[in-house]
């Protein structure tokens, strides 16, 4: 049975309604271009940890780790995370440097629906590295009545 069909009947769906036009893969590509210009990121060095299947999209743990010695000469300058389907494609942009010792950032994000997440790291030599992950969001059952 279609899960949405069931949910639509049993509970008003109040999960992060995407009222305005949701971000699209195109909007994500555009947002990425704004940050990295015409450069093409190379896949690798970046690890994006998100649970592949989450029970609720409102609080999804996410960790980005980048392989880097984090020295003056060779470090990660920035880490950006983007998504396809939330109302806005940007999730966060962080600035870091040799003082961090390790290029690892953890946070928690909202995902209105199952989608692809992309993390891009900029290293001190001006190169861009990336990783992507797909997340499936299962909707919670028995939600709040829509009051």
């Amino acid at each position: 049975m279609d899960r949405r069909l069931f949910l639509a009947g049993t509970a008003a769906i109040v999960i992060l309604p995407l009222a305005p036009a949701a971000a699209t893969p195109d909007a994500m590509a555009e947002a990425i271009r704004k940050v990295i210009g015409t450069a093409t990121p190379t896949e690798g060095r970046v690890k994006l940890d998100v649970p592949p299947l989450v029970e609720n999209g409102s609080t999804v743990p996410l960790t980005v780790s980048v392989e880097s010695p984090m020295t003056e000469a060779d470090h990660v300058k920035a880490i950006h995370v983007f998504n396809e389907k939330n109302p806005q494609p940007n999730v966060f942009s962080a600035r870091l440097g040799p003082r961090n010792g390790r290029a690892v950032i953890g946070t928690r994000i909202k995902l209105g629906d199952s989608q692809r997440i992309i993390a891009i790291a900029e290293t001190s030599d001006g190169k861009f590295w990336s990783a992507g992950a797909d997340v499936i969001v299962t909707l919670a059952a028995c939600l709040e009545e829509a009051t």
Partner: protein
Amino acid sequence: MSNILVNAPKTARRGDVIEIKALILHPMETGFRPGPNGRILPRNIIERFTATWNGTEIFAMDMSPAIAANPFVSFFARANDSGTVVLRWTGDEGFAAEHRVDIAVE
């Protein structure tokens, strides 16, 4: 009154890389959700989180409405000298909160 929980070691050896974790009470209202009366709730998010070590910025993060309510951030820092780490959150509606941690480096 802000509610903030921070986890950072009180002491570290010089050169150690330590993890700092921070959690703050904040709705992170996206500006896209209808409220009880059907009208869209105004956006109210934390826009920026920064960390300084003895006054020098060592980490900064620009947040979007896609960061979950009650934002959690973890990052690392190299302990070069004893001092104070100041974590600062700023955002919509004049939101500003600060938390200090003293770390002794030997």
